């Protein structure tokens, strides 16, 4: 019974079942580089499938990582025909919602009330109001997931086989992952209210022909689908990214425990920015040696704590890992583990990004 775990993400990169892959960890550990790398490797190894990389971090980095501008709509990465990226922009989405509300208020303004509401919203009141809600980014990211599922069910527009999330630092991500549960509860209660208050609520929300109960049930079903998919290890997994330092290790462990408490699968850890100083003949300074010694201490701990996880050890490169070429070069070590003796030269080969 061979239960050895490979120190790479080959099984994930070649996986044909995974629909949702979350990449997360503490701030500044290389989440965006790692998520881009995973997305690139998956897209390269499965050319017949479509991949989408979504940034749910309010401070988006995808555009900078690839060196081209992405927006709230999915757009293909230049040079790859099966990888698209998008950055969810809460302010733009909220502005759309605000504009919709304004036009609706103006349309219903024949009784005089609409004008007041319309003028109130003209200044972007709704956007200002909702934009300040903590967790709105996560809520909007979640709406994207729902839209994606709906599109796939209905076969509308561009569909993606796998969605990779470049998540925000741990706290935001956990809130995002809690959303299906929170929404389920809210919708449950909301359903009870609509049943009890029926007509009063309808008049509250304006005159239209929308079946609120039907919509709510539909939404509930969608949320439940997501909840089930997120907890199915064949469909969803979480890749933790960390660096070999105490705080990062501590936060990774807490993140893993939270994810397990949500019943989510987590089996891979990427340890970034490793120096491998003893194999570096060119730049083996005293500081590098001291830092590598410290990194090794935590690497030993990581090896011991996560012997059943895919622990991928990634090198610290000499240059910035930006642009598709650099990312592709770097990402190969996710598929086949980095060997400091034979692969050492790659860390100096990254192109300068002007």
């Amino acid at each position, binding site marked *: 019974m061979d239960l050895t775990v490979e120190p790479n993400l080959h099984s994930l990169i070649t996986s044909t079942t995974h629909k949702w892959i979350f990449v997360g960890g503490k701030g500044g550990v290389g989440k965006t580089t790692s998520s881009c790398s995973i997305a690139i490797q998956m897209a390269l190894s499965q050319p017949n499938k479509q991949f989408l990389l979504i940034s749910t971090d309010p401070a988006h980095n995808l555009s900078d990582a690839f060196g081209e501008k992405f927006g709230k709509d999915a757009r293909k990465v230049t040079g790859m025909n099966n990888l698209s990226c998008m950055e969810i922009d809460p302010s733009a989405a909220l502005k759309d919602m605000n504009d919709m509300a304004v036009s609706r208020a103006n349309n219903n303004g024949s009784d005089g009330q609409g004008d007041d509401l319309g003028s109130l919203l003209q200044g972007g009141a709704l956007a200002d109001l909702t934009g300040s809600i903590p967790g709105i980014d996560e809520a909007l990211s979640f709406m994207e997931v729902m839209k994606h599922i709906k599109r796939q069910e209905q076969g509308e527009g561009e569909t993606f086989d796998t969605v990779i999330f470049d998540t925000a630092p741990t706290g935001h991500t956990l809130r995002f992952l809690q959303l299906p549960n929170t929404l389920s509860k809210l919708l449950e209660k909301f359903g009870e209210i609509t049943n009890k208050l029926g007509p009063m609520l309808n008049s509250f929300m304006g005159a239209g022909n929308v079946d609120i109960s039907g919509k709510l049930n539909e939404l509930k079903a969608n949320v439940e689908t997501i909840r089930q998919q997120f907890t199915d290890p064949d469909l969803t997994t979480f890749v933790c990214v960390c660096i070999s330092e105490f705080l990062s290790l501590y936060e990774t462990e807490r993140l893993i*425990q939270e994810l397990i408490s949500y019943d989510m699968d987590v089996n891979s850890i990427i340890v970034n920015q490793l120096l491998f100083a003893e194999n570096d003949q060119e730049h083996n300074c005293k500081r590098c040696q001291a830092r590598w010694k410290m990194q090794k201490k935590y690497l030993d701990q990581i090896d011991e704590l996560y012997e059943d996880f895919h622990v991928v050890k990634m090198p610290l490169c000499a240059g910035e890992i930006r642009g598709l070429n650099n990312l592709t070069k770097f990402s190969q070590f996710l598929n086949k583990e980095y060997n400091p003796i034979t692969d050492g030269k790659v860390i100096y080969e990254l192109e300068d990004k002007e």
Partner: protein
Amino acid sequence: SELTEAEKRRLLRERRQKKFSNGGASSRLNKITGQASSHLNAESPLDAPSAAKTTPPASVHSATPDIKEDSNVAPQLDLLKQLAAMQGQGTGKSTPQDSSTPDLLSLLSSMNTGMPSAEGTPSFGQAAPAAPINQAALDYHDYLLNRLKAWTILVKWVFFLLPYLYLITRPNSSVWPAYAFTQSAWFAPLRNPSNFTRIFATFEFLSISIYYQLLKNVEHKSKIKNLQDTNKLVKLVSLVPEGVIPVANLKGKLITLLQYWDLLSMLITDISFVLIVLGLLTYL
């Protein structure tokens, strides 16, 4: 038999979950913070009592001030409003099923304190029940250990101890001339009974060392640490929070002691075997 990728993934998942259950999660955090002498919280969300997550809603009266004060409610309330806005903002066709006043305040209070999941099913975000121990993997590990022990004892007893004891008690037996090497000069010290203690001690030292290495290989292969994962005493000790007993790394020390005991028990078994065989040979 060969495992499929899916089976392997499942077994690994169960093994991971097992390591985080039964107090293992807090112990891991303790280990991380302990080695760095950190004061960060080592209480695991997995070991928190699940009751805290399913606290029943507080009463209407007591809940009201909490709602005003607790800023955590605000985003959820706003999200609720936002959901309503997103859902078409129109009138519904549904009719009220009863005319009673909705219990809005208890809803808010529920949001504040957490609600039980619908239909009693474990919900996303709620602590997962402790993972079942992967009995198949443990049984297989036990089988490997028992097989190793049995083979070690068999080889030691049948191929060394028994012939050796027979040799020193029956040096003139007609059996020995059939084996030419027993008549050679370098074999003479083995035939000398006065060397028994030295030879037996050397043999035990070597055989126990080899046995220990093989045991470690089995543990490494099956990724189950025999004492750490299966011993009840170790499990009990790991439940004791760090600092309660004034002995640092109590679990580690206990595991070391148990390892020594495991090896010592092998030695005691061999000594017993030698005594029994010697006793029997005196009567034969």
